[in-house]
Structure formats: structure tokens, C-alpha cells
């Protein structure tokens, strides 16, 4: 219990943000509301990065994910909106909600069991890495993974363009 009482208030706040944002994203009927839930979660995760002494990653998270990615998702929602309103808002039957609760409870139990069995020890916080060192790492020892990620992104983009063209030809 000693560890629990030592939770940083900011950590608790970010935890609440992440979980409540996720709940909104899953439970909301309207797509845009689900998207705002996602935004709340992303903010919480950015806060977690701040607590881990990685402000650069935290601000990048806000700049890229909140500022650009969610805006693009919003754009996609607006473009694909059908005339009968929101898509994918069919009401779930009792059986489906039962299955949903079962799945949530099962995964929670498994995760809780693992955490209780192998409680990770708190690692002392490392000092904040300077931007220069981050850059050296990305272009030095981690250059390959850095390049691979950009290749993956490029492939995804090219694939999206290709799919778009094929769809247009079919019409």
C-alpha cells in the first residue's frame, strides 16, 4: 500500500485523463465525440511523457498527434459522412454488451494477475536527455530503426495513394 499512497498527483490526473478519454472513445455514439475522447487520451499520454522527463517527446506528441493526426481523422470523418448521419452507431443487443463486458473483465483480470505476480520495481528517474544527444542517438546507433520507420511510413502513404487511384478507376 505504501507504493499506492506515493502516487504523484499529476500521475493520477494523467491516468484519469487516459482512462476517461478511452472510455469516451469507445462508448460515444458520434464519431466526432469518440475522436475528442481520443484527443483527451493523447493529452494524458503526453503528460506521462512529461513525468518521465521526456518533454521533447511530450510536446511532439501534442504537436503531431493532437495537432495533425486527429485533425486529419476529423477531415476523414467529414468527407465520409453519409446522408443518414453518423455511420457505425447501431445499437448493440444485450448479448453483444454481455460479450463486451466479459472481454473487458477477462483482460483486466489477466493484466491484474500479471501485475500482482510480477510487480515491477520503480526505476529511479533518469535525467532529461538533451536534444543534441537525442539527435546523436537517432542518427548513430539507432539510425537503422529510424530509417526503417520512415520507410514504413512511406510505404503506407504510397499504398494509400495507390488504393485511392484504383478506387477511382473502378468508378
Amino acid at each position, binding site marked *: 500500500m505504501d507504493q499506492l499512497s506515493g502516487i504523484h498527483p499529476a500521475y493520477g490526473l494523467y491516468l484519469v485523463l487516459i482512462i476517461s478519454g478511452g472510455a469516451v472513445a469507445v462508448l460515444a455514439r458520434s464519431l*466526432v*465525440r469518440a475522436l*475528442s475522447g481520443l484527443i483527451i487520451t493523447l493529452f494524458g499520454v503526453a503528460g506521462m511523457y512529461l513525468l518521465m522527463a521526456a518533454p521533447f517527446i511530450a510536446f511532439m506528441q*501534442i504537436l503531431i498527434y*493532437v*495537432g*495533425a493526426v486527429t485533425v486529419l481523422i476529423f477531415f476523414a470523418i467529414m468527407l465520409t459522412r453519409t446522408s443518414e448521419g453518423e455511420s457505425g452507431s447501431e445499437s448493440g443487443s444485450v448479448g453483444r454488451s454481455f460479450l463486451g463486458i466479459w472481454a473487458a473483465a477477462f483482460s483486466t483480470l489477466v493484466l491484474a494477475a500479471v501485475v500482482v505476480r510480477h510487480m515491477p520495481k520503480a526505476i529511479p528517474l533518469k535525467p532529461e536527455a538533451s536534444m543534441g544527444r537525442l539527435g546523436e542517438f537517432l542518427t548513430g546507433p539507432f539510425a537503422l530503426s529510424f530509417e526503417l520507420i520512415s520507410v514504413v511510413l512511406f510505404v503506407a502513404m504510397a499504398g494509400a495513394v495507390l488504393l485511392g487511384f484504383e478506387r477511382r478507376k473502378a468508378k
Partner: protein
Amino acid sequence: MTQILQFLMLPLVHLIVALIAILTFIALNGLILVYVERKVAGFIQRRPGPFEVGPHGLLQPLADALKLVGKQLVMPRGADRILFWVAPLLSFAPVAICLLPIPFGPYLLGLNVNLGLLLVLAFSGLNVLALCLAGWGSNNKYALLGAARAVAQSVAYEIPLLLSVLCVAFTCGSLSFVDITASQTRGLLSWNVFSQPLAFLIFFVSALAETNRAPFDLPEAESELTAGFHTEYSGMGFGLFFLAEYSYMIVVSAVASVLFLGGWSGPFFSGHWWMLGKIYALILIMMWFRWTYPRVRFDQLLNICWKWLIPLSLINLLGTALIINLVR
């Protein structure tokens, strides 16, 4: 006395005092800019502008503000009850954070962070999101069109903006506003605008687009979309959007003066008056633009960005990197 000073030096107290000061500045600035904009518009169009309320119409913005506060808040039927009211708040709230890391004077600084530039860029991006939510939540076609325009515009213009900012970060070797200002205190010629003139131009044009100022005010183009994303807002809902727009003008001009015009340093008597002078000079130029150029068409807007600003800023960035490598 020393106890009071010590109390003021506590980080949290310092932050709260800075936030209060910034909010006061934002409110005062809103009143001033409303008056100045109407006067500038008047003079450019050869008419006196507001003249009736108070001497030379000085009390006009106060009357406007009272009118806005007193108006009824109306929500259209079928609007999204939560998102409709969250949007103006989300538009206004990040402004205070954006102004925190900006050094207005040698000691006039809310929060000294190493990544100040990144902080401002990250939080100023939230404005687009607010416009989207406002446009979508209003259940209005004009508002939705305005939101769609805002998205396309800001996503496009964010790229040259970031690239031009990166040039300055390269030359100064830092993302901290304090360091960037410190590197420009060696006289007038050490200002970045002289070493990075192209970056300054690109930054200023992109910033005009990001703040939805004319000639790039397509999201709220009144002749085509009534009022764009804020068509359905009345009273302080509209007031907050308005205040946010004027405050983003301050943020953008302040960032531009720190990055390119030496911040609070001047050729003589360096201090916060230089910073304020530069900020308001840039804002006057923005107003001058608004009443000089007609609004661009949407395809023109995107062409300017994708065909001119992005290639130019990429070339500028590569050139800067090359020169820095050669010099080292």
C-alpha cells in the same frame, strides 16, 4: 520585504502570477486591438472609424465588450450539446500557455523551458481543432464548410511554418526563446532577419494563414460563408473566438519578433518596450495587409503553399544546414 520576494520566487507562485498577468494582458490587448483595427480600417478607407463613444471613439471597444457579455447564448437545434460549448473554450485556453515561455523582457518571462519554441508550436495547433469542433458541432452547413477550409489551410501551412522555424533553430542551436534572444543581442545586424530573410517571409505568410487573417481568412469568409465556423455563436461564444484570434496575433507576432527581430534587444535602451513595439508593429502590418489585399481563392491558397512556400522553405532549410556544416 525579503520574505515577500522569496514567496514570489517560488516556482508555483511565479507561474500563477505570470498566468494572471498574461490573462490581463490578453484582455487589455483584445480591447486595444478591436479599437485599433477599426481605426486602421477607417483610415485606410478614408473615413474616421468609430467616433461617437468617448473621445475619438476610445470607449467603443468597451461598449462592444459589454454588448457581447450581455447577449443571450443561443445553441441551434441539433447541435452537439457538449462540443458546441467546448470549442470556444478550447480555442481560447491554449493562448495563455503559448505566451508563458516568451521572454517579453530580460526578466519578464513566465516560464523558462528549454523547448519553449516547441511548446508554443504544439499548443497553437489546438486552435484548428477548436475550429473543427465548432464547425461540426454547430449543425450548420456554412460552419462545416468553414471547418473543412480551416483544416486544409492549417495542415498545409503548418509545414512551411515549421520548416522556417527550424532554420532559426539550426542557426541558434537551441529551441529556447531565451537562448535565441541571447544570440541576437550583439547589435542590429545579429538579428536573424538579416541572416534568414527568406525564412522570415515564409514564417510571416504562413503565420497569417495559421491565424486565419486576411487575405487568408477563408474559414470565416463573410461574403461566402456568412461567418464560417462561428456562424452559430452568439454573445461570449463568439467573443471568445474573437479574443482567441487577437491573442493568436499576439502570439505569432511575439514569436516572430523573438525568432527574427531580436526579441527585447534593440540598438539602444534594450528592454520590454522594444518587444512590445515590435509585436504591435507586426500586428499593424497584418492589419494593413487585411485592408489592402483581396481574399485569395481556395485553390490559390493551396497553390501558394504547396507550390511556393514548401519548396522554398525546404531549399532554405537545406541551404542553412549546408552552410552551418561548412562553417563548422
